[in-house]
C-alpha cells in the first residue's frame, strides 16, 4: 500500500524500531532520511534499502547530543528530500543499571539522548509544521514513562518527560492540523533489550513499526504498542503509590 507520507525523517534509524520503520516506509514508496550516530550502520541499512535501484533512503550521521547542528541539518535534510511530512524520533538508550547503582554518567546519557535530543529536534520540527500547518510528529516514548520504576529511575524519568513534552507540543500545534503522536511501546525485541531475557508481551520490531505507522496515519494522540498495554496501564497507573512500592517493579 502506498505511503500517505512522501518524505520522512527518522532520528535513531540505525537499529531496532527506527530501522524497521525506515524499512517499511521505504517499501511503501516514501523517501526517508535516516539519522543516527553510527555511520557504518546507516550505510549497511541504506545499501539494503536502495538495493532495488531507487535511491529513496538517504543517510545523515549525527549525534543528537550535538543540538547546535540540528537547525542546519534539519534544513539540509528537508532540502534534500524536497520536503518533510513525517518526523519520527526513535533515538533512545537504556544502559543496564544495577538495582543499587547510581551512575550519573548513565543517567545523563539517557536524559541527553532520550529527552534533550528529542526536544532539540522536535522544537525545530514543530516550528516548521506549525508554521506550514501540516505534518506528523511521532515520538517513540515508552510504557516505562507511565510509572516510576525502581529498576530504571532515569530511563522512566526521560520517557515520562518526553511523553509530557509531546503532549504539550500537541496542545500547541495540534490546532493547526499537525498530528503529534506519542507512541508507548512495551518490550520490543531490539538490540536495546538484548540480554534482558524474555519479557511480558514482547513483540518484534517489525510488528511494533507496523503498529506505529498505523497509529501515526490515524493521528492518534497516544498509542500503546501493542494495544494490550493500554488496559494494563489503565490499572497500573491507578495503583496507589504505597501499593506500587511493594510490587518492586
Amino acid at each position, binding site marked *: 500500500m502506498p505511503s500517505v507520507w512522501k518524505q520522512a525523517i527518522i532520528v535513531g534509524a540505525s537499529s531496532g524500531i527506527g530501522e524497521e520503520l525506515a524499512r517499511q516506509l521505504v517499501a511503501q514508496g516514501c523517501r526517508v532520511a535516516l539519522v543516527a550516530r553510527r555511520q557504518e550502520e546507516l550505510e549497511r541499512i541504506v545499501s539494503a534499502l536502495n538495493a532495488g535501484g531507487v535511491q529513496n533512503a538517504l543517510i545523515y550521521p549525527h549525534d543528537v547530543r550535538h543540538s547546535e547542528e540540528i537547525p542546519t*541539518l534539519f534544513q539540509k535534510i528537508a532540502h534534500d528530500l524536497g520536503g518533510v511530512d513525517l518526523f519520527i524520533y526513535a533515538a533512545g538508550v537504556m544502559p543496564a543499571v544495577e538495582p543499587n547503582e547510581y551512575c550519573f554518567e548513565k543517567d545523563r546519557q539517557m536524559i541527553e539522548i532520550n529527552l534533550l535530543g528529542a526536544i532539540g529536534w522536535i522544537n525545530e520540527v514543530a516550528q516548521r509544521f506549525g508554521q506550514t500547518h501540516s505534518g506528523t510528529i511521532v515520538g517513540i516514548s515508552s510504557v516505562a514513562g507511565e510509572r516510576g520504576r525502581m529498576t530504571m529511575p532515569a530511563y522512566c524519568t526521560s520517557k515520562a518527560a518526553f511523553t509530557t513534552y509531546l503532549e504539550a507540543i500537541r496542545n500547541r500545534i495540534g490546532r493547526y492540523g499537525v498530528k503529534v503522536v506519542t507512541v508507548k511501546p512495551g518490550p520490543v525485541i531490539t538490540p536495546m533489550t538484548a540480554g534482558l531475557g524474555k519479557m511480558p508481551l514482547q513483540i518484534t520490531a517489525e510488528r511494533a513499526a507496523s503498529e506505529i505507522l498505523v497509529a501515526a496515519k490515524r493521528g492518534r494522540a497516544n498509542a500503546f504498542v501493542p494495544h494490550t498495554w493500554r488496559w494494563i496501564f489503565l490499572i497500573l497507573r491507578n495503583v496507589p503509590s504505597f501499593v506500587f512500592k511493594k510490587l518492586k517493579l
Partner: protein
Amino acid sequence: MAVQSLENQKEESVSTPLEKPLPLDHLERVEAWGMNTSVCSYVYRPTTVEGIREVFQIAKAHDRTVALRGSGCSYGDASLGAENISLDLTRMNRILDWSPETGVIRVEPGATIRNIWQYVIEDGWWLPVVSGTMFVSMGGALGMNIHGKNNYGMGPFGEHVLAFDLLTPAGELLRCSREENSELFFGAIGGFGMLGCFVSVTLRLKRIYSGQLSVYAFATPDLSTLFREFEARMGSADYLVAWVDCFATGKALGRSLIHQADYLAKGVDPTPTQTLRVKHQELPETILGLIPKSIMWRFMKLFGNNWGMRLINRTKYVQGSTLGNKKTFRQSHAAFAFLLDYVPNWKFIYKPGGLIQYQSFVPEATAEACFRAQLETCQRAGIVPFLGVFKRHRKDSFLMSHAVEGYSFALDLPVTKHNRERVWSLAKELNQLVLEAGGRFYFAKDSTLDSETARSYLGEEALHRFYALKRSCDPHNLLQTELSRRLFGTDWK
C-alpha cells in the same frame, strides 16, 4: 531504538559541517492554484529591484534555487520550488507611468490585470488580452504569455508588450523590446520565469468606447457544429468562447454554448462615461440580490461529484439551448472576461484533492478528431471533466509558444486521493493524442507533462535557442521551479 554505547559518548560528532540555515520565519506553504500540489518554500517579497538582487544573493549564499511567483495563478507547479526560495512579486505592484492619450502604461511585475483595468478604464482603455481571472500579475502574464478569448484576433499577451526590463540572475538589468535584445524579448515572454525577473513592463492598451460588450449566446448540438460556428464567426467576432458539456455522449458529444462578444463602436453606448466607471464593471457580490457569492462554493460543493456535475452540465445546456438560446445582451467587460472570478473560491468544490486543468492546443486540421478522442477517452476512463472550455488560437513568434493555428480545449479534471494516479495516466493517454495531432501545451496549466513530451512538441531547434539564452542569463542555474525540473532537468543541454 538506537543503542548508543556509553564509551563513545564523549566523541566528537561525525556530522559534516553545514551551511547556515535560512531564516525559518520565511518558511511558508506555497500552493498551486489548482490545489493539486503544494510545497514549503522560503518566501521573500521584495518591493524594489535592489530587493530582488538581494534575494538572488541570499539564494547563492545558501546554495538554493529561486522560483519566481506572481499571484500564483498557474494551475500546476510552474511557480513552486520545494525547500528553495520563492520570490513573490506581489508587493511590487505599482503603476509607474500612464499616458491616457496614447494608452501606453508602465507597471511593476506584481501589478495585476485588475490593478490595471481599474486604473485605466475611466480614460477609455482596456487590456487587449486578458485571462479568465483578473488576478494574474504582469510578471505571470509575461512569463506564461497568457491568452484570452480573442487569441485568434489579438494574439497572446506578449504581442501587446512594447518593452520590459529584465533583471537576470547574472545581475544584469536589460531593456528588452522588439528592437533591443530582441532574442531575449521573444524568449523571456513565455519563458516561464527561467531567464530573469521582469522588473517593469510597458504595454499598449486598447481603446474602448463603452464599458459594455454586445454578447450573443447560442447553443450548438455537437462538436462538428461547434467547429463550424467558430470558423464562420472568427473573422468578425472580437471574442469567442464555448463552454462544452463533457458528459454528453453519442451524437450529442461536444454539445456546447457559445458566447460571442463584440466591442461597441463609438457612439453606440449612449452613456459611456457611466459604463466606463469601475463601479459599473464590478462583479455583483450577491446572487439575485440575496445570496452572498462568497458562500456559494459551499452549496456548489454538494454537486462536486460526477452525478452532481452531470446534472449541472445538463441543466446549463438545456437552459442555454432553450430559454437562453440566440439571445443578445449587453455585459460589462469585467463580467464577460473574468468568468473565473464570478463565484469567489469556486475551486474549493474540488477540495481536498484539487484539480488539474488539462489544456491542449491543436492545429485546425486535426483538432476536431483529437478533441473528440479526448472526450471519449475521458469518458471511457470514468474521469469526466467537470468543465470544458473551447477557444480559437493563432500562431505567434515567441520562442516557447504554446499557440497553434487552431483550437484549444481546456478540461477541468477533479483530483482525489483515490483517482490521482488514474488522472495522471489519463493525461498521458491524452498527451499521446495531442502529439499525434501535432499539438502543443501550456506551462501555466500543466501538471502532468513529462520531459519527453515537452521536448517533442517544442522541437530541438527552439530548445537549443532557449537553452543558450538560459545559460547566458542564468549561468548558475538559479531560476528553477518544480515544473522546469520536471520538464527540462537542471542542466539545460
